[in-house]
């Protein structure tokens, strides 16, 4: 075969591909248009049975039956969207039970062990809507999925499915997860506080692995679990600084005199991160008695501690703000600059700074 012939073949193949791509694009546009029209028509037909069901004039089955007319993938998305925005919590179990009778839902959940991760993702999303306690084993497998997207989607199903044993295993894995994922998990665990608190109380002992302890202390604070926070407070002198920092961040969530006393002690910690967290906590607790201690800490060698201490003073009412204004003429230029910055901020900026 000559070089010319080879080129001619390449050119023909390319031309054929180009034509195929153009045909594909044309057909795709048309299919998309028809699909969009059909989805929109079905969507508008969904609201009537949904409204009737929620008003007690109809059954959930009528709503679920209307979902059938959507393509499988769209039905899941639409139902999920409505569940989040329009269906109150009290109706979710009824919806889940009705959905479980639907072949398309059973089929989707049945793909939880599929080799295709897209199908496992759909199963996890389906469980968030139609999961039942009996699905705990399936959900656990999805939570441990090698594909992070599947594991993240499975987190949303936890409140529907999890039992004590699964919650315990989830807590044991907290230390191994990246912090963003842990925080995302907090959202689901918040809906299961009664299951989480006893499991946390058992785990919050000083002999536990430090990294896990820090994560559990953080969780106790975020979920504001009083019994667990009692245990967290006992860890204030833990040898690991990141555990002490987590303790300082957690106990500020519950305003108690004991918390303020512990945080005042922590202002003298050897680690600057712990001192900064303690100052932050004293500000959040609005503990007026902390003003003298914070006035000392504004001279700390660490920028972060000075910043947090000055900010905390502004949270302590007029006496604290007066103290900050006085610091603007401090002989230490670092202290004076910081006080001038903080004293000049408007209320919104201050709130942003405190939360950040």
């Amino acid at each position: 075969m000559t070089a010319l012939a080879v080129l001619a073949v390449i050119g023909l193949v390319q031309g054929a591909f180009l034509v195929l791509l153009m045909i594909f694009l044309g057909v795709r546009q048309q299919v998309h248009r028809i699909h969009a029209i059909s989805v929109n028509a079905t969507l508008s037909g969904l609201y009537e049975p949904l409204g009737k069901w929620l008003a007690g004039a109809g059954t959930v089955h009528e709503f679920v039956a209307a979902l059938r007319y959507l393509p499988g993938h769209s039905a899941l998305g639409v139902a999920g969207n409505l569940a989040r925005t329009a269906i109150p919590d009290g109706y979710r179990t009824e919806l889940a039970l009705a959905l479980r009778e639907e072949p398309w839902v059973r089929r989707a959940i049945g793909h939880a062990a599929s080799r295709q991760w897209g199908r496992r993702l759909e199963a996890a999303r389906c469980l968030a809507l139609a999961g039942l306690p009996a699905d705990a084993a399936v959900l656990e497998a999805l939570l441990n999925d090698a594909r992070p997207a599947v594991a993240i989607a499975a987190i949303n199903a936890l409140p529907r499915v999890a039992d004590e044993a699964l919650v315990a295993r989830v807590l044991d894995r907290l230390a191994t997860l990246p912090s963003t994922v842990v925080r995302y998990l907090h959202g689901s665990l918040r809906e299961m506080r009664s299951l989480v608190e006893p499991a946390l109380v058992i785990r919050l002992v000083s002999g536990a692995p430090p990294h896990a302890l820090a994560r559990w202390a953080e969780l106790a604070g975020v979920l504001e679990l009083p019994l667990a926070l009692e245990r967290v407070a006992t860890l204030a002198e833990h040898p690991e600084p990141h555990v002490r920092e987590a303790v300082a961040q957690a106990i500020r969530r519950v305003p108690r005199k004991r918390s303020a006393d512990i945080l005042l002690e922590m202002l003298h910690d050897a680690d600057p991160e712990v001192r900064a967290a303690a100052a932050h906590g004293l500000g959040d607790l609005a503990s007026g008695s902390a003003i003298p201690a914070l006035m000392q800490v504004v001279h700390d060698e660490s920028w972060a501690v000075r910043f947090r201490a000055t900010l905390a003073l502004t949270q302590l009412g007029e006496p604290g703000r007066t103290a900050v204004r006085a610091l603007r003429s401090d002989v230490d230029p670092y202290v004076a600059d910081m006080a001038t910055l903080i004293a000049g901020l408007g209320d919104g900026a201050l709130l942003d700074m405190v939360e950040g």
Partner: protein
Amino acid sequence: MITPQLTSVLHRTLWWADHAVLVYFLLLNSFYALLLLLSIPELWKHWRISDDEQLSRLLASDALPPLSILVPAYNEEVTIAASTLSFLTLEYPRFEVILVNDGSRDRTVEVLTREFDLYEVPPAYRRPLATKPIRAVYRSRKHSRLVVIDKENGGKADSLNAGMNAARHPYVVSVDADTLIEPDALMRLARPFLLGTPVAAVGGTLRVANGCVVRMGRVVDPRVDPVWLTGCQVVEYLRAFLFGRLGWNTLGGSLIISGAFGLFKLEYLIAIGGYKTGNVTEDMDLVVRLQRYLYENRIKAELPFIPDPVAWTEVPSDRKVLSRQRERWHRGLIGTMITHRDLLFNRKYGVMGMVAIPYFFFGEMLAPLVELLGYVMTGVGFAIGAIDTRFALLFLACAVGYGTLLSFWAIVLEEVSFRRYHRRTDLLWLLLFGAIEGIGYRQLTVWFRLQAFWKFLSGSEDWGVMTRKGFGTPT
């Protein structure tokens, strides 16, 4: 008079040069084909995840890390108020906007002061990166998330460094003052965090805003500009982002995260000394140094590209400005490749040393020279009758056809995934520009890039004036 000996020498030279260009063409296009194949599963992955992604749940949680958005601004008095407001109203749980006025000669600071009720605060923050002197730092009484730094002129890199010094959050997003970011783009850009991927940087997609309907700093109706020069750039951007960068995701070693819309881990940027002033394409230089730092310190952190977070940018709409932009980009590429030439085929740097740098060196930096060589050899070949006309025309058709195929593929990827353009006429314009881009526009950009070699050798560090028309509503 051409002697038989000279003709013979020319024939032999042509034979070798033709074969060299042919091998180069085959290798480069095979690599493009590889990127194209690798982009498919990546795009499917992101499309599948982004579909039904619970962004509202994320917005209400504190899962995502707080961000500092860095906006360098120079002489932006006309657009600065609208663009700053569009940054401040982005959907993301916790962020601050640090706008750095780079010694503007117009009334940028005055406009900001009036619109956002700015007041001066002392610059009480650490400054690990050296920058030009800071004149003042302002905060806004109306928008607590806004910080404005007024500094002496030092260029974009210097402004970004000043912004990094003031950043309070662990991740920074660099954007241009005239970039229009889609409201949910930051949350989408932060997807790797949620997926638990350790990241050093994340790149988002840039699209062409020319021709789109823009209201209040937002693209409300994406359209393809039916003007040849900008229309060709729409296809060019789709190709570069939708399969070029997605393909690199799988290979690893990506060297480009656009300075107009990219997210970086502040700790790493500080460790490498921030942006390098004096480099005309500071973003590529930064990413190469960042990759280098990660390799040398054995830090396992990725630099993924995410296709669905979109920012819109105005591209040059006349030849002069396009010429300056492309010449500057290529000069920056040459500078970066020369500076980091020790990485070339350096096994110590893994994929970056063995694949990415060689690709950018031979496949991107030298491409205009090789293409010029191809055109010259073809001309000489015709002149001395050494080239079969049919072969030359067929070869040209195949080369242009392959480029068109890649463009059409990018359009298909767009159409089956995120579908930003809804009208049938837009699709037709995309196909038309994809088909004609290979003749005329491509040669024009080759010429602009060739000029970069001359400017680089003459030691120019000039940015050139980038005049823009601004956003509006097309009639």
